[in-house]
């Protein structure tokens, strides 16, 4: 036992006497044994042997069983291996969110490579930047999306077209030699220089995380997961690999349901969804419109959330509707395999009270370091740093940014051991729980997406008319504002249209203000403090 762990870290995963605990016990469920092999794909193979005819994934076009899923994945793997000798290389997947996409991820893993999900809504210019850095061995796509890859500069010989008939009959199952430190997936996050960073996560990282989650939340094949997270967002790792590992059914909620919260809740009821892991803004949209009072309550038992701050007002709304359900707040940047801390809600919160991000999950240590690199005391703010084997290997093809974020554990002068500097500030409260306390740089969370304001500024300044740009975030209004200098008058509509060619829509500032000159501070840099004050006061220009 690591003596540095506080006693809080050893508390039971499920609060004693909770509705969920007794519910699971009375139903006779046992926690599924956790896979302990070298490759996460072995968990899918084991589940397909155990539950071949059970529904694995449901999308808008219907279900697929575990045996069919593995069969398709094997077909994909055989096709990859027929095209390339690459091992431990990224194979990008550029497909709409579907069961085919899941089969492609599994196929990439079976081929001995790492899957890299790409956003099919990404503008070609951003896609091109990302692919240039990633240099994937292949990109899997379908006929409907192949043209966009061409626009992004992907050569035809790098494209593997999904045929829809992939099966094991397409070729012999490839032999694998995966070890646990090999990369399992690469997910991209916003980069302050304008180029997204590809975070390389190992099989070990996923196994650690999923093994913990299966036990902590009592996930079994009886669970039905209502999946919200887009696949290029790492929250999807939990949904996908709980399905592979525990045999839970994964329901891919059609995207259009997120436009209309009533339809979303009705869909959960229709699919008998019991488990969700969503960003708080989706839960908040349901709460804001009081949808749960206006329709049948879905049979939810486990409600998890992560990706941004959960307002207690929203949590209280959901808890009032589901007094017996388990609620859990998770926290973590992509670089530590999805989440490094969790908090199982065990008490009441006032509407204006912050909700803890909790304690480190199994096999992780969270350090809160003050300005001098020493552990901060109770109640003292410091930067959240994380150590453990689930840390990412770093950023693909990017040693400089890797070295800046993955540093030597400052508390260990004895041997090389990386710690990840999250850039998030936090403190421990009197209970030993970690509380989130904002950022120490210009990164924000908006609608669950992690955004470097610098990436937006870089995209704006790449336009020939823009001389200078500065983006600030107003957390109260949950919106970004961009101030810019341009060489000729540029209408907001034109600017938005041009930016949408370089940025995904969630990165587009809601407010855009042209200024003759951006204000500078005493050190000659753009005065962000002044601009942020203008945004808060709604005084533009």
């Amino acid at each position, binding site marked *: 036992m690591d003596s540095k762990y506080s006693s809080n870290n050893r508390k039971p995963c499920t609060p004693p006497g909770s509705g969920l605990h007794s519910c699971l016990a009375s139903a006779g469920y046992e926690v599924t044994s956790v896979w302990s092999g070298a490759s996460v794909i072995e968990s899918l193979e084991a589940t397909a042997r155990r539950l071949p005819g059970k529904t694995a994934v449901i999308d808008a076009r219907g279900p697929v069983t575990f045996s069919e899923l593995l069969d398709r994945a094997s077909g994909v793997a055989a096709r990859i291996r027929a095209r390339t000798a690459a091992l431990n290389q990224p194979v990008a997947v550029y497909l709409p969110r579907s069961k085919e996409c899941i089969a492609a991820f599994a196929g990439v893993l079976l081929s001995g490579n790492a899957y890299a999900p790409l956003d099919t809504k990404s503008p070609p210019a951003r896609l091109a930047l990302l692919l240039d850095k990633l240099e994937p061995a292949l990109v899997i796509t379908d006929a409907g999306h192949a043209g966009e890859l061409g626009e992004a500069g992907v050569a035809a010989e790098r494209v593997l077209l999904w045929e829809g008939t992939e099966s094991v009959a397409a070729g012999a199952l490839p032999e694998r030699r995966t070890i646990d430190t090999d990369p399992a997936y690469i997910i991209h996050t916003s980069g302050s220089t304008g180029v997204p960073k590809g975070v390389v996560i190992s099989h070990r990282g996923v196994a650690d995380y999923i093994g913990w989650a299966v036990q902590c939340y009592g996930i079994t094949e009886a669970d039905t997961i209502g999946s919200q997270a887009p696949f290029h967002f790492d929250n999807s790792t939990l949904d996908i690999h709980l399905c592979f590992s525990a045999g839970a059914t994964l329901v891919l909620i059609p995207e259009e349901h997120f436009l*209309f*919260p009533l*339809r979303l809740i009705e869909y959960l009821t229709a699919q008998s969804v019991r488990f969700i892991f969503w960003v708080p803004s989706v839960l908040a949209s349901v709460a804001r*419109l*009081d949808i749960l009072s206006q329709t049948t309550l879905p049979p939810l038992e486990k409600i998890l959330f992560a990706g941004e701050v959960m307002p207690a007002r929203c949590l209280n709304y959901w808890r009032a509707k589901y007094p017996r359900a388990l609620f859990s707040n998770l926290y973590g940047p992509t670089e530590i395999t999805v989440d490094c801390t969790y908090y199982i809600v065990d008490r009441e919160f006032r509407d204006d009270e912050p909700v803890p991000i909790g304690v480190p999950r199994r096999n992780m240590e969270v350090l809160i370091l003050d300005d001098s690199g020493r552990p901060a005391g109770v109640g003292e703010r410091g930067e959240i740093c994380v150590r453990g084997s689930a840390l990412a290997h770093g950023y693909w093809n990017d040693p400089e940014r890797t070295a800046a974020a993955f540093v030597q554990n400052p508390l260990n002068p004895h041997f090389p051991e990386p710690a990840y500097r999250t850039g998030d500030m936090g403190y421990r409260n009197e209970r030993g729980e970690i509380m989130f306390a904002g950022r120490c740089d210009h990164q924000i969370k908006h609608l669950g997406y992690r955004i470097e304001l610098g990436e937006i500024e870089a995209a704006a300044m790449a336009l020939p008319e823009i001389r200078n740009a500065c983006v600030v975030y107003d957390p109260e209004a949950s919106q970004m504002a961009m101030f810019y200098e341009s060489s000729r008058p540029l209408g907001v509509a034109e600017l938005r*249209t041009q930016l949408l060619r370089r940025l995904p829509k969630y990165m587009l500032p809601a407010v855009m203000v042209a200024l003759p000159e951006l204000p500078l501070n005493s050190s000659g840099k753009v005065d962000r403090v002044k601009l942020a004050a203008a945004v808060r006061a709604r005084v533009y220009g």
Partner: protein
Amino acid sequence: MDELIGILREIRPEFEFRDSQDFVGDGMLDSLDVVTLVAALDQRYRISIRGVEIVPENFRNLETIAVLLRKHGVTG
């Protein structure tokens, strides 16, 4: 109708809303836009659109939104 188009164009200036009979199907509105649109309509016309009314049928095109507004007593 022009006022409604103005509200929609403030949210998505890059689209010509008169040309579409299916805003969602044509990819002109996403989840954030629908929330923003409802808030803008509530504020502009001093109405309160309820959760059960925020369904695809009511936000399909200019005509269906106008029908919804008329139910809330908004004319013109």
